[in-house]
C-alpha cells in the first residue's frame, strides 16, 4: 500500500483538450437553451400543463442522485475503513461536488423565474420537501468541500473521520429527501409511496458508482495512467450488488402494486400499455439498465475486467436515465383520477394519457448540466491533485505479491 501519490492531469495528451472543448460547446448550448426557454416562455419546450416536469428534471435528478452515490466510494474508505478505496476518496468527493453542481444548474435554469434564485435562497417554507432539498444540497456542497479539505490536507487528518461520517449521513438524508419529493405526493398514484426513499438511495448508489467509474476511466485515460484489475473487480462487485438491489426494489414495488387491485390500472399502463413509457421501462430500465450490467458483472467464464466494467457502467447510466424518465414522465403521463371508476374528458386533457415529446431545447439544457459536471471534474483534476498517479494492483491490493 505504498507509493500512492496524487497528481494533476498532465497536459501531455490532446484528448484532454478535446474533452474540454466538447464540454465547453455543450455548456454553451445548454446556456443558450436556458436563455431561449426563459425568453420565449416554456411553451417552446415539450413540457406543458400536463407534463410539467420533463427531460431537464430527468437529467437534474439523475445528476443529483449520482452525486450522492459517487461520494459513496469515499465514505466506504473513510467511514467503513476499506483501505483499497482510499486512493479514490478525494476524486470521489470531487465527482460528487461536480455532479451536484451540474444537476442543480439544470434544475435552476429550468425554473419559470430563474432570476429569482435569490428568493429561493431567502424564503423557506419548512413544510416543503423541496425547501429541505435546497438546504440539503447547499449543505452537501459545504460538507463535501470540507471533507475534501480534510482528505487532502494532512493537518486536517484528525477531522477526516468526522467529516466523512457527517457527509455520509448527510447524503443519506439528501437522497431520501430527493425520493420524497415524489414520495410525499398524495395526488399522483404512482408517486405516493414510502418505497421511493429507499429506492432512490439504491438508485443513487448504483448510478453514482457507474458514473464515478466512467469519470475515473476517462480521467485516467486522458492522463495516461493505468487502473489495475484489483480495483476494477472491487468496484464491479460493488456495482453488481447495487444494480441487484435496485432491480429487487423495482420488482417488489411493481408486484405490490399489482397485488392491490386499486393500482392495477396504473401498473397496466407502466408495464403493458404505456407506449413509449412501457418501451423505455422494459428496454431501457430492465434490459439495458439491469440485465445487461448483471450479465457483464457476474462473469461465468472470465474474470471482471476494465472493458466489462466500462460497458456495465454505460448501461447502468442509460438504465438510470430510463428509470427516472419512467418515474418522472410516466407518473405525470398517467392521468389524475378525479372520479374513480368513471371515464372523464374535458378541454384540459382530463382522463387522457398525456403525451410528452421532448424538444431539442430542453434536451440541450439537460445535457449541458452533464457537460458542466464533466468539465468541473476535468478542470478540478487538472488544477488540484485529485487523481492518484497509479492504481496498480501493487498499490491497491493488500494481498498483492509480486510474482
Amino acid at each position, binding site marked *: 500500500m505504498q507509493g500512492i501519490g496524487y497528481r494533476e492531469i498532465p497536459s501531455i495528451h490532446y484528448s484532454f483538450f478535446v474533452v474540454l472543448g466538447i464540454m465547453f460547446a455543450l455548456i454553451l448550448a445548454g446556456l443558450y437553451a436556458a436563455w431561449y426557454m426563459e425568453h420565449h*416562455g416554456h411553451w417552446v419546450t415539450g413540457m406543458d400543463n400536463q407534463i410539467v*416536469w420533463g427531460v431537464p428534471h430527468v437529467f437534474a435528478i439523475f445528476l443529483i442522485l449520482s452525486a450522492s452515490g459517487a461520494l459513496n466510494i469515499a465514505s466506504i474508505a473513510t467511514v467503513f475503513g476499506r483501505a483499497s478505496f482510499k486512493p479514490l476518496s478525494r476524486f470521489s468527493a470531487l465527482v460528487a461536488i461536480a455532479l451536484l453542481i451540474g444537476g442543480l444548474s439544470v434544475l435552476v435554469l429550468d425554473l*419559470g423565474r430563474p432570476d429569482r434564485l435569490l428568493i429561493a435562497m431567502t*424564503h423557506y*417554507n419548512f413544510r416543503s420537501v423541496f425547501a429541505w432539498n435546497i438546504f440539503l444540497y447547499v449543505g452537501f456542497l459545504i460538507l463535501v468541500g470540507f471533507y475534501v479539505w480534510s482528505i487532502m490536507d494532512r493537518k486536517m487528518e484528525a477531522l477526516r473521520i468526522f467529516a466523512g461520517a457527517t457527509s455520509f449521513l448527510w447524503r443519506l438524508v439528501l437522497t431520501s429527501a430527493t425520493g420524497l419529493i415524489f414520495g410525499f*405526493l398524495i395526488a399522483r398514484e404512482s408517486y405516493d409511496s414510502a418505497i421511493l426513499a429507499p429506492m432512490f438511495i439504491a438508485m443513487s448508489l448504483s448510478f453514482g458508482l457507474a458514473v464515478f467509474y466512467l469519470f475515473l476511466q476517462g480521467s485516467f485515460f486522458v492522463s495516461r495512467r493505468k487502473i489495475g484489475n484489483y480495483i476494477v473487480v472491487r468496484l464491479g462487485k460493488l456495482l453488481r450488488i447495487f444494480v441487484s438491489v435496485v432491480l429487487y426494489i423495482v420488482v417488489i414495488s411493481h408486484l405490490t402494486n399489482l397485488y392491490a387491485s386499486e393500482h392495477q390500472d396504473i401498473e397496466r399502463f407502466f408495464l403493458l400499455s404505456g407506449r413509449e413509457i412501457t418501451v423505455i421501462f422494459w428496454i431501457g430500465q430492465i434490459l439495458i439498465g439491469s440485465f445487461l450490467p448483471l450479465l457483464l458483472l457476474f462473469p461465468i467464464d472470465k474474470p471482471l475486467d476494465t472493458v466489462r466494467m466500462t460497458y456495465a457502467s454505460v448501461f447502468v447510466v442509460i438504465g438510470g436515465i430510463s428509470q427516472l424518465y419512467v418515474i418522472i414522465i410516466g407518473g405525470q403521463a398517467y392521468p389524475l383520477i378525479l372520479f374513480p371508476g368513471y371515464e*372523464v374528458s374535458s378541454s*384540459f386533457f382530463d382522463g387522457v394519457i398525456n403525451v410528452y415529446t421532448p424538444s431539442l431545447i430542453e434536451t440541450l439544457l439537460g445535457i449541458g448540466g452533464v457537460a458542466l459536471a464533466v468539465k468541473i471534474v476535468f478542470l478540478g483534476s487538472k488544477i488540484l491533485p485529485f487523481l492518484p498517479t497509479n492504481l496498480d494492483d501493487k498499490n491497491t491490493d493488500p494481498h498483492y505479491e509480486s510474482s
Partner: protein
Amino acid sequence: MNDNVDRKCEPCDRRTFLGGAISAASLTIAPGVTLFSIPSFARKPGERASNVNRWGLLIDINKCPDGCNECVKACHRENGVKSHGRPETDAKWIRKITVSGSGRRPEFEIPVMCQHCENPPCVDVCPTGASMKRADGIVLVDKHTCIGCRYCMIACPYKARSFVHEKTTGQRSFAPRGKGTVESCTLCVHRVDQNRLPACVERCQEKAGGAMIFGDINDKNSAISKALRKYPSKEIRGDLNLKLGVRYRGIP
C-alpha cells in the same frame, strides 16, 4: 321551480327563471333551498381577512346544464386569462369535465377549479411559500415569490393549477399574471373582498343553471351553510381528506 332545470344552456331570462320566488332577503329556488342571501360577512376596508370566515362554493351538478360553459368563460374573461391557441400550454382556471360512467351510472358534467383545500398540498410543497392560504381559506399564489418550479402543479390532485407558458399582456389590474409563474382560481378574491360574488357564480346565477352557491361556510346562517345542512354534498376525492372549500351535490 323544481330541480329539473332545463339542462340546455339557453340564456334564460332571470326573472322568469326565478319566478316569484324572490323574497326580500334571500332567493329561494325550491322550498327550503336558499340559493343566495345577502352575505353577512362584510369586512370593513382596511380590515384583514380572518378565519372567522371560510369561503366556499356549493355546486349542484343537477342544475349544471350540459354543454354550458358560461362559468368558464366568465372566469377567464374576468381574470384576463387568454388563450394563445395552444391548448396544451394555455392556462385554465376552471374547466368543465364530462364524466361518464358505465352501466347504470349516469353521465354528468361538472365544473372543476381550485378546490381551496383547508389542507392544501400545493401550499405544503411550495419551497418559497409563494403558494399560500389566506386566513379565510382562499388559496392563492404570491407571484412575487413564485419561482416557477411547478412542484405545486405536480402536488395538486385536481389539476387546478396552470403554469404561464408565454408572455402575458392585457392583465386585469386585480389579477396580475405573468410568464414563468403558476396561477389558479383565486375564488375571485378581489370580488369577495368587495362583498361581491365570484364571476363564475354570478354568471351561473344570471345566465345559466344557477348551480353555484357561494358563501361563508363558517356562518351557520349563510345560504351555503343551510344548503350544506339540508342536502348531502360531497368533495371530489374526499378520500384524500383535504377538507375542500368547494363541495358538490349530485356527484358519485
